């Protein structure tokens, strides 16, 4: 997301000064996540917590800006503006990243097995966040692949595989104990793999544009965004973590 927002806001030439914020926010979130991953102390960290919350807040604000950008253009909310205006789904990803980071802080801090998140049991909460995140990412991919006329049959993959995973993890969120953990795990792993494959497909897409890689200064901006598909991987991983939490709470 750091890469994606950097590229896209560079494309927008930072016409609004605030466009630098999501880059800073996602960089910081990346930083604290790495820090948190390496920190052996099983406790939440005030600064990491603050950054995560700020990231989520930045995403919320960005969502407002993007919505304004899309609707202020001519013709109210038209297909054309959805296609070419600021992507509504992108700031949502930052909200998600911030929220996931917050979740990670909460989870690591738990002294006992009954971990909670935003007042709810952690497992179902994280599963619900994953399902929501997947839904948003699917919608974004669907919109942009629709814009690309599904000209390559593989473009149907992100609107067929992840929805199944999203459905399954949403179901798990609603159940006290997940009834289909193996099936859910399979589809999440498939979605995670799809994220990598998608990056590969997008790189191919950039290369088949006019001038290919030599014309990178146009094609990296115009072509299918290479950093976008890995969002599926990130979400799928969160879903797998949620499944673990759901599974462990089963033994309470």
């Amino acid at each position, binding site marked *: 997301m750091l890469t994606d927002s950097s590229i896209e806001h560079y*494309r*927008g*030439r930072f*016409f609004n000064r605030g466009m630098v914020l999501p880059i800073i926010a996602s960089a910081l979130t990346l930083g604290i996540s790495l820090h948190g991953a390496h920190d052996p102390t099983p406790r939440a960290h005030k600064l990491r917590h603050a950054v995560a919350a700020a990231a989520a807040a930045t995403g919320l604000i960005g969502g407002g800006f993007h919505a304004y950008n899309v609707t202020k253009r001519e013709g109210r909310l038209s297909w054309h503006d959805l296609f070419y205006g600021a992507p509504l789904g992108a700031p949502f990803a930052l909200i998600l990243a911030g929220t996931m980071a917050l979740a990670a802080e909460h989870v690591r801090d738990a002294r006992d097995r009954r971990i909670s998140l935003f007042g709810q049991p952690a497992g179902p909460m994280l599963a619900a966040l994953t399902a929501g995140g997947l839904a948003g990412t699917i919608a974004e991919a669907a919109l942009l692949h629709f814009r690309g006329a599904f000209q390559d049959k593989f473009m149907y993959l992100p609107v067929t595989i992840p929805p199944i995973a999203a459905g399954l993890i949403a179901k798990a969120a609603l159940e006290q104990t997940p009834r289909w953990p193996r099936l859910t795990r399979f589809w999440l792993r498939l979605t995670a793999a799809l994220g990598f494959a998608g990056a590969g497909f997008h790189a191919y897409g950039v290369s088949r544009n*006019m*001038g290919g890689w*030599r*014309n990178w*200064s*146009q094609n990296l*901006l*115009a072509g299918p965004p290479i950093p976008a598909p890995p969002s599926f991987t990130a979400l799928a991983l969160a879903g797998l973590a949620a499944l673990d939490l759901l599974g462990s709470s089963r033994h309470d």
Partner: protein
Amino acid sequence: MTERNRFPGYSTLAKHDTPSWNAQTRAVVDKRLNDPPPRRFFTEEEWSVLVAICARIILQPTQRDPNVPIAPFIDQKMAENRGDGFQQAGLPGMQQEWRRGLSAIDTEARLRFGAAFVDLPAGRQDDVLHMVQDGDVCAPAWADLPAQQFFKGRLLIDIVTMYYAHPQAWDEIGFGGPASPRGYVRMGFDRYDPWEAVEHA
């Protein structure tokens, strides 16, 4: 006439070896710049009148040296007889139009101001050209060549065409220049790509 450059530092030629130019474009523009065609069609006299007219129709910045050549390319078009694809009934073909037109303009200058067109000061040359443009002429040669039609449909068209085929003309108006394989990404109001001209208004 000095002029503030609206796009200082911008040069379409500077993109010669970037993805904005392809081999074909380089070949064509290089030839135009490095190998301007020799005078083959117009006589020396006609040529000097043409050069003088071009200098009034297209005012080139005084700080530019050398000037963008225009007359050689009109000469080449006439020499090769590469028409635009149509000829008005009752008018001679474009080769004759130019020959007669140049001669008529010179005659007009002599009749009105008592000197050859090339010997008149710039202001007087402009006066003659305005007369031709308005059809307010008295040289007998114009009987076979309607002055307004010649000015609007042949003289102006050919001269501006050859000038705006030159990279320096592209630079001064902020045109993006050649664009293949690399085109453009940013298409909105007040948006431009890093390889476009930046306006200093």
